[in-house]
């Protein structure tokens, strides 16, 4: 069950209450999120849609602990992250969040293998164990034969699959994807979406995804629209 009315029973994995985010632009205040509520249970696959500038990325950044809200609270798996300080928040991200970005954001100086290994460097895993995890993750995204390739030697679709492998390798609590197909052709986008769908259905991953693409949104179990700083269910304007 996904709810946007703030009346969840408290068992949801992600609980957002009365979330406000205001940016200061010069002397002007921009209210991007206004009293936003959200409950997402485990293993859900949610798509956020909405016009450009409606605050989708802002919401995702707040959910992932990359930024702090102006007001309101976010609780993930019992941890209220809106109260965590810098280093604690970093540790929380490492443990609980897998990010996938529109522009893949792989490190160009590292190979596919090394990119996927990055989150594991922050764990206690030994070298051999890290290798095993990375190989499993790259196998999952169908790139076992590209371990030693650098990002510039991969296609956009392949890069995005490497970045998905990097997002899941440390087995995070949930995945946050910001327009994961936004920069891909239709075929690659289809492959990436099939992969996310499989992660949700087969591996029970909780996924929160921002997208402009109705074809991508179709794959999600729930589609929410961001309008005037709040989330609404069903058919939106975009």
């Amino acid at each position, binding site marked *: 069950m996904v709810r946007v009315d703030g009346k969840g029973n408290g068992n949801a994995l992600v609980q957002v209450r009365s979330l406000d985010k205001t940016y200061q632009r010069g002397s002007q205040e921009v209210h991007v999120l206004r009293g936003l509520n959200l409950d997402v249970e485990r293993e859900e696959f949610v798509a956020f849609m909405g016009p450009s500038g409606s605050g989708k990325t802002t919401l995702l950044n707040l959910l992932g602990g*990359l930024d702090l809200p102006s007001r309101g609270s976010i609780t993930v798996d019992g941890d209220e992250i809106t109260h965590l300080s810098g280093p604690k928040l970093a540790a929380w*991200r490492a443990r609980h969040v897998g990010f996938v970005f529109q522009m893949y954001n792989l490190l160009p100086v590292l190979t596919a293998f*090394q990119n996927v290994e990055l989150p594991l460097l922050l764990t206690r895993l030994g070298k051999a164990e890290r290798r095993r995890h990375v190989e499993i993750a790259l196998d999952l995204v169908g790139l076992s034969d590209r371990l030693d390739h650098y990002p510039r030697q991969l296609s956009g679709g392949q890069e995005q699959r490497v970045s998905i492998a990097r997002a899941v390798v440390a087995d995070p609590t949930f995945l946050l994807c910001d327009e994961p197909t936004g920069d891909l052709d239709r075929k690659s986008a289809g492959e990436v979406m099939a992969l996310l769908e499989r992660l949700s259905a087969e591996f029970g991953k909780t996924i929160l995804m921002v997208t402009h693409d109705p074809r991508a949104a179709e794959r999600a179990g729930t589609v929410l629209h961001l309008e005037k700083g709040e989330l609404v269910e069903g058919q939106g304007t975009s």
Partner: protein
Amino acid sequence: MKFFRLVWSNLLRKKTRTTLTIGSFAVALFLFGLLVTIQTAFNQGVEVAGVDRLVVRNKISLIMPLPLSYQQQMLQIPGVKAVTFATWFGGYYQDPKNFFPQFAIQKETWLKMYPEFQVPKDQWSAFLADREACIVGQKTAQKYGIKVGDRIPIVASIWGGVWEFNVRGIYTGVRTEDDTTQLWFRWDYLDERRQWGKGTVGWYVVRVENPDDAMAVAKAIDGRFANSSWETKTDTERAFAAGFVKQMGNIKLLILVIGGVVFFTLLLVTGNTLAMSVRERTGELAVLKTLGFTDVAVLWLVLGESLLYSAQGGILGLAAVKLFTLHGDPTGGFLPLFYLPPSKMILGLLVALATGAAAGIIPAVLAMRLRIVDALRRV
């Protein structure tokens, strides 16, 4: 060390830039090593000078002589244990460019005054037995291929003529720093053969009973000869050597100024390179933070990069100086103890690392302060 490869891979990002940065460090450290070697060479005399020895010279100038009779008079001063003397000969071997010091020495007392110099017993006996004998230091002997039994000509620039000496022995130093470039011959032979200055010596060397009394004894000696026609100036050997170095100009200051300018330039160049490299990968640093790298970890990644540049360049530069100094004195005799001590190499490496850290700290702090959302928005 699992983060090492992450730092390392950033060095490989722009190979030309990395090579140039490491090269700047290498050049700077080469210069540093060279200056330190020169300074060490100049100061070596000061550092190895005996603490219980005084040098007594003519008050007017080092090149003015003192009468021979002072030896007996000094021995009567309380606190004086032994006295020897020498005269500067100032000649050259084969070519005026071949500089090494030659001393006419008092054969009975000289070696006892300088326990740091070693001559095999039989060679010393041969020296005592031959008026035209000389003893040559190991370094000079090696340099000119002089062997025991050779007869070598020295052109005398002060007393004129060519003086031939029989090489009766080679002396060595107990420590590596000991100066083994000198040639000693007998003062009695000098005094017999020279046309003028007979009965005088260049300077005296006095051993005191107790180093703590050195200054008092020095005062007593100068007091003893005050108001005579040959007044003296007595210093500890260390002060004497330091004064000698001072005459060469303030080398330490020179080295500090040159070194300071070089390292300041290095600081700016490296700092700028790193700032550029951080600016270029704002997005990547933000991604690392997104993945859970803390701000402090990111600071260390950038600082580590800077330290890697400086360590590699430093090692390269210092190794080059070491190789260079292995050939010994490049000046043909003016810096007989031309070598780079290990302690100074370590100092050099520390200076390099400190420079690297100083150059890296501002870019590193910028990287640390980087806010993820701002950086990602710019990607």
